[in-house]
């Protein structure tokens, strides 16, 4: 980095000039978040303008090389960019999960051709990706994966079924684990990319207890996937998948950070005692003890980011973060429901924004299941970090 102060000033000036005023408002509802993709719908033209401008600078993926659509920034510069965006209140131009999961994975395992094909489009928000890992009856147990990809010379022929494919009904491409060798549990799995419009792909949304359908069942019926779409080595897809999962854990662990004080939210809902304190002493105490944990976890998240940056994160620490972050987020929403009382039980009323609180609460129950259950994380901590013996 040549001169951080100069970079900061230039960045600030550029942001101030280029970030539309609408994009400096806090995010208020779901459609304020830009997810990108072929079928992207923009609530406000300023969203598209802001995304285009940022993508042009490569700042939707600040640390990627410029040749792949990134900004080519150093970690320090990226941090400055982030803090300046925070200072000006700029919205995130593109909230794409694949930017922080598939992106780094392709940078590490992808061929040059794959990087040039996929990364720039990802950075511009042109392609919305979904993940095809889980299968019915397999859950967290990827070793019993059954979706087959047969070698047909220049292409694989994929047959099988995935479940819990996030937003598969909105996605343009999928990255997908398939079995290419049935004689070997872990080593027979490969990592493929393909277009969801390929003939033979069909999708059925799964309705969740929250009433939403963020996940789908996805079916593959003789889907032809060109061989060039294999990421990493044949039969070594498990390594690629693990690398991607560790990035996913990092993103999921941060669910509870940066939110309003639960105590303040509760006070607004419950009211106050004569001395001005939250008028439900037992709930108040439970919130106070929760907040200790939440604030301590926030410190741990900061530490984790710094450790990653300095390459000093202990191995498997992402499992610790994922476990704690998701369990805390579940508790947080339990407490929130407790605080809001019968108001939060309404499911359809406008007053409750269509049951937003209750639906969000139910949604959190998946946190400790998706991306590796809490039980899987505890197994990893026990076996890999604490080195406890196998059964």
């Amino acid at each position, binding site marked *: 980095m040549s001169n951080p102060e100069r970079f900061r000033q230039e960045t600030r000036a550029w942001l101030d000039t280029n970030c539309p005023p609408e994009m400096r408002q806090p995010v208020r509802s779901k459609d304020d978040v830009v997810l990108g993709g072929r079928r992207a719908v923009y609530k406000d033209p300023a969203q598209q303008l802001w995304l285009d401008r940022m993508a042009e600078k490569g700042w939707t993926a600040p640390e990627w090389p410029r040749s792949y659509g990134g900004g080519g920034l150093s970690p320090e510069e990226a941090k400055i960019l982030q803090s300046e965006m925070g200072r000006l209140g700029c919205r995130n131009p593109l909230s794409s999960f694949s930017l922080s999961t598939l992106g780094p994975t392709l940078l590490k395992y992808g061929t040059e051709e794959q990087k040039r094909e996929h990364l720039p489009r990802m950075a511009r928000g042109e392609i919305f990706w979904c993940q095809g890992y*889980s299968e019915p*009856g397999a*859950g*967290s*147990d990827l*070793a*019993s994966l059954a979706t087959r990809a047969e070698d047909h010379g220049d292409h694989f022929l994929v047959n099988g079924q995935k*479940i*819990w494919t996030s937003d598969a009904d909105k996605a343009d491409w999928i990255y997908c684990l398939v079995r290419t060798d049935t004689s070997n549990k872990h080593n027979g799995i490969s990592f493929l990319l393909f277009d969801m419009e390929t003939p033979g792909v069909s999708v059925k949304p*799964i*309705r*969740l*207890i929250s*009433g939403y359908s963020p996940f789908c069942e996805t079916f593959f019926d003789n889907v032809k996937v060109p061989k060039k779409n294999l990421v990493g080595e044949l039969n070594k897809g498990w390594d690629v998948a693990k690398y991607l999962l560790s990035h996913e854990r990092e993103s999921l662990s941060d669910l509870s950070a940066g939110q309003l004080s639960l105590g303040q939210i509760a006070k607004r*809902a*419950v*009211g106050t005692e004569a001395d001005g304190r939250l008028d*439900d*002493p*037992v*709930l108040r105490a*439970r919130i106070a003890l929760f907040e200790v944990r939440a604030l301590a976890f926030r410190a741990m998240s900061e530490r984790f980011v710094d450790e990653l940056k300095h390459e000093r994160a202990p191995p498997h620490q992402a499992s610790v973060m994922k476990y704690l972050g998701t369990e805390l987020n*579940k508790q947080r929403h*339990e407490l929130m*429901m*407790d605080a*809001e*009382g*019968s*108001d*939060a*039980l*309404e*499911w*359809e*009323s406008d007053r409750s924004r269509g*049951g937003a609180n*209750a639906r969000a609460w*139910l949604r959190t*129950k*998946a946190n*400790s*299941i*998706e991306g590796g*259950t*809490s*039980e899987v994380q*505890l197994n990893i901590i026990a076996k890999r970090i604490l080195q406890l013996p196998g059964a």
Partner: protein
Amino acid sequence: MPLCHTEDQTMLADTVRPFLAEQAPVRHMRALRDAGDRTGFSPDLWKRFAELGLNGVLMDEADGGLGLGHVEAGIVLEEIGRNLTPSPFLATAVGAVTMLRGGSTAQRQAWLPRILAGEAVGVLAIDETPRHRPGRIALRAQRVGNGFRLMGEKRFVTHGHVADFLIVAARTAGSCEDEMGVTLFLIESHVANLTVEAERLTDSSLAARLKFDGVEVLKEAVVGEVDRGFDGLTKTLSALRTGASAEMVGVGSGALDMTIGYLKQRKQFGRLIGSFQALQHRAAHLYAEMEVARAAVLKAQELLDCGDAGAEQSVMVAKAMTGMASALAVQEGIQMHGGIGMTDEYDIGFYMKRQRVLSELFGDADYHADHLARLAGY
């Protein structure tokens, strides 16, 4: 009275259990929900309750009832809970019937036979804020001529939108936190100046928000004495809390049974997941918690039934304990089911939703724990 079911009670359970499992299992509730039902229960089923005499479980034999107690009502409610059966049983056969014990002969004659026949639904309207605070009644009933005029709001009145009559706690004197000055009114639902808004809740049940915009009633509408309704309110709340606790025991047990069944059938990493010791210990802990809750409810029921002075305390213990234990049951239930438990297609999520509504109803664990601490002087 020994703290275990008598032979008669065991027989009642043996009748009610298959009745509800056959007539109103979870898919009955699911079907009502999917059909967009706006009644909140099946009137047919309510009739069948009546045919079995269940609606009169707490009514005196002189009134045509079974003359039984809260243990027996709890047996019915546990099965309602286990099957997530939508029913006005708690609100009417427990709440309204208990309240009508203090009602006038006219009130009793008007409503008890109709409840008994499964032809009427009556509910209590207590809550005015999102949290249950029955010690603060602000809805005003002003004396006007030969009666009263009611102004104010009530909410979280389950089945309130289809009730034939409402029993409303209102303030006739004193200020918001006074016990003296609370009066109970029995009001037919179709009076003028009453707006009833039905809200769908998370568990797909319906609860009403009521707006009293100058509702006029005669003095004959008063249940018990003017200004002295707090006691009757408390007694009825004890009955309702005990009933809700019994229903939560059913919800928690249902979730537990479903989860244990799943642990015995689902394989992962080549093994039945129920053979993993970490899950075994959590399931065992949960079982123990549910047993404590069940015992606490039985204790409350028996003390209520023999009119013991310690009943109110026991009721609060039961409501708080079942709230905590059944919350654990549904949370562990979802987590142990993994992804499938998150789908609407699978029933375990309904248990979580119902648990939360029941836990909030008539005060949650925090409310009752704090109240118990106050009663114990700390």
